[in-house]
């Protein structure tokens, strides 16, 4: 091998090496987009729901109401007969079996949708109104093109008669897709078309607020002590080792802590944002202390010395000068820590937040779900409709995380000083 060949070989090796590096970076970036694309393409459908137009005649006789009912009468009335009467008028059907097939095109909530409409608009009694009633999950998925209609009839949940009905309704222009407000206002449900993340949103909100209220003040105080006041001794070293170790302890261990101490010893209520908030606060604390200390450390000693030189005490120099300068950095560290806590699932499962909760919690001691746990719960469900619900929940969760991270970056860029 002569000199040129050797050099060429070495240069080729150089190029190859560089290419490996570039390929790895591109591969990692590809994973990001592949993952996000997989979630977003599945989930976007859940923001729309399929409805079927039904002419509803709010006949006072069928409802057994007087001509001028008060609000209480409207709430107590039985809407089932009215709903069924109007629904079977949508198409010409004969016999009980066909009627049942037609009714099953609708979500089981039709009775309450009609009831809600009348209660909100009491003056339409004895009039006929065109309502868009929510379709059942199967029709919803069929209309969105996710349902395999070419399967043989016995393997489908929709029979051929229902398929024909659906096709005729589509041709008549009675099937619509509208914004799915249920997704944000309703709690969990066994029926995908009625399930929403309202409860999970409120639960996550309570949890994160409790986490913030507990972890932020303690983290700031601890980092001020360790960075500014702590003498160099064994206790301080021990605290620091503890903080560094806690930051790397798997989150599920904090779940065991919450289960053993908060539920087992203190008997706090299970499945509640209160317990979740305390558990996550303990988990987030060391993860906030580390960036808080870094931003306190970044304040140059000249600030402290200047304050001390004009007669401030140590506490005054720290509280009046160092801490205000470090606040933007501590805030952005806290927000990033909270974003991590918001996406945490495993500890919440252990403290019982996997319970099936339909009601939207109104105080932090109500049983509740939270966004990441809702993702886990729905991903275990067999119904096709829950797949897109799960993806939509992930989209909502990710958009919160992105917002939080943007706020953190903004705070850092806007307020952090370069010394």
């Amino acid at each position, binding site marked *: 091998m002569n000199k040129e060949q050797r050099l060429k070989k070495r240069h080729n090796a150089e190029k190859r090496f*560089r290419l490996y590096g570039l390929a*790895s970076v591109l591969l990692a970036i590809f994973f990001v987009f592949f993952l996000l694309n997989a979630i977003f393409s599945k989930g976007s459908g859940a923001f729309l729901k399929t409805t079927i137009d039904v002419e509803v005649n709010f006949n006072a006789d069928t409802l057994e109401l007087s001509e001028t009912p008060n609000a209480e009468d409207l709430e107590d009335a039985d809407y089932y007969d009215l709903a069924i009467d109007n629904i079977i008028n949508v198409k010409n059907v004969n016999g009980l079996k066909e009627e049942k097939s037609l009714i099953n095109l609708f979500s089981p909530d039709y009775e309450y949708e009609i009831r809600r409409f009348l209660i909100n608009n009491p003056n339409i009694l004895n009039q006929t109104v065109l309502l868009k009633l929510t379709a059942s999950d199967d029709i919803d998925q069929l209309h969105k093109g996710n349902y395999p209609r070419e399967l043989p009839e016995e393997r489908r949940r929709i029979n051929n008669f229902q398929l024909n009905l659906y096709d005729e309704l589509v041709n008549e222009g009675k099937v619509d897709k509208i914004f799915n407000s249920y997704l944000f206002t309703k709690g969990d449900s066994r029926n995908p078309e009625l399930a929403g993340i309202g409860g999970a949103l409120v639960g996550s909100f309570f949890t994160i607020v409790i986490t913030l209220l507990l972890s932020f003040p303690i983290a700031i105080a601890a980092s001020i002590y360790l960075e500014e006041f702590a003498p160099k001794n064994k206790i301080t070293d021990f605290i620091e080792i503890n903080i560094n170790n806690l930051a790397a*302890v798997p989150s599920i261990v904090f779940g065991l*802590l919450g289960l053993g*101490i908060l539920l087992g010893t203190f008997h706090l209520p299970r499945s509640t944002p209160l317990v979740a908030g305390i558990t996550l606060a303990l988990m987030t604390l060391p993860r906030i202390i580390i960036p808080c200390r870094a931003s306190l450390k970044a304040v140059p000693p000249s600030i402290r010395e200047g304050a001390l030189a004009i007669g401030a005490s140590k506490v005054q120099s720290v509280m009046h000068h160092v801490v205000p300068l470090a606040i933007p950095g501590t805030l952005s560290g806290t927000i990033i820590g909270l974003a991590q806590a918001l996406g945490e699932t495993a500890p919440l499962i252990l403290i019982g937040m996997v319970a099936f909760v339909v009601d939207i919690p109104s105080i932090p001691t109500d049983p509740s779900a939270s966004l990441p746990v809702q993702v886990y719960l729905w991903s275990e469900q067999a119904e096709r409709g829950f797949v897109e619900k799960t993806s939509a929940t992930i989209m909502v969760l990710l958009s919160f995380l992105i917002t939080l991270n943007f706020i953190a970056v903004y705070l850092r860029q806007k307020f952090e000083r370069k010394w």
Partner: protein
Amino acid sequence: MNIIILLLVTIFSYFSFLYGRSRIRTITSTQSIKINALPNYYGYYLALWCAIPALVILLLWSIFEPAIIKLLISQTLAQNDLNYSSDQLNLIYQKIRSLYEGNFSGTLTEEIILGVKNYESFHVIAQSSKIVLLLSTLIATISYGIMRISKNNKARHDVEKILTGLLFACSLVAILTTMGIIFSLLFESIKFFSAINIFDFLFGMSWSPQRAFVSDASAITTLEYENLKGAFGSVPLFAGTAFIALIAMIVAVPIGLFSGIYMAEYASSKVRKYSKPIIEILAGIPTVVYGFFAALTVGPFFREVGEKFGLEVSSESALAAGLVMGVMIIPYVSSLSDDVINAVPQSLRDGSYAIGATKSETIKRVVIPAALPGIVGSVLLAVSRAIGETMIVVMAAGLAANLTINPLESTTTITTQIVMLLIGDQEFDSPKTQSAFALGLTLFFATLILNYIALRFVKKYREKYE
């Protein structure tokens, strides 16, 4: 009740602040002496004397009141010649409490009705004595504070001392958390190990806690123990955890390391500026999202591909879980090794270039050997993340504890089993639930040791070049 008291304490503290401040002003104007601190500090001083003792009492009271009332109730039950075991007592106490709180369902018995009456009276006594205690303490501490102020004490010094003490107390929370973790894990684990021999747990070859039924956890017969031994052997879990972590590292280490090298050595600052945050998005995505992705996209995909080649692939294969976990870990490896490589002094590179080495030769022969301890440290940190990772394996790796090295079969991990043992309602006194805490303890120590070694590596490396 507690909220009202808290509100009152806050209001009292605020008025103490105002009073302390005006008090020292009147003293200075009437006695014309020079005060030792700014007037505000006297306000803070009095407010602290008002708030801290009250809050401490309130906290201690809230912790101990239920225990004391429970003790009293069980004593009254014992007086009526009703002999119960501690479990029965617990149950009755729970019933009494839920009846008192108005969400009782079930049949009422005489002792419960009696218990509720007692509970109510104890509760009233406790509430009123709490208020009396709080008020008297407040009066005592505030008057002590006022006395000190009248003597023109060094208020700023005192306030600062209290403040530093409070800051110190906050930093102790980290120690308390660690202690809480260790105690809660140890407490249940010791109970578990008193039923199951620790060696049978650590070295047993089969794991099937679902068939571990024991009639009485405190007295296990030899026959039952033979069964239990077979149910709680955790080697398959350790093997599964290590196996999935290995697959994850096979994905994450090359990709992460090469991207770290590329970022540190080759990429222009513009490329760095955009690609680094994009890769770090991977670290910010919640793990439950990866789990969903692994279970719904990657797992079925592998099964389809496997079917085409005539392979039998479980839809919950170790491969799918490990691969997705590897993707999640890429940014940890890449950003840590990027930092480590950046910390290698430029003079080492310059020396290598000066004798004619190409860039890749410099990296391979000089930079990486120099950065090796740091890189090893970052890989170890990534391993500790992989074995502690829960949601991906819970959703994608299966539940059956197979002892296998076939990546296409399903395996299970420590974290998966902890979740599966503790999901839903469970009684605290069965070996099944306690085994979850024993697994948690193992996991805690495993990650602790890994992190310790990793941090030692990183620290040693840093010292070398500083």
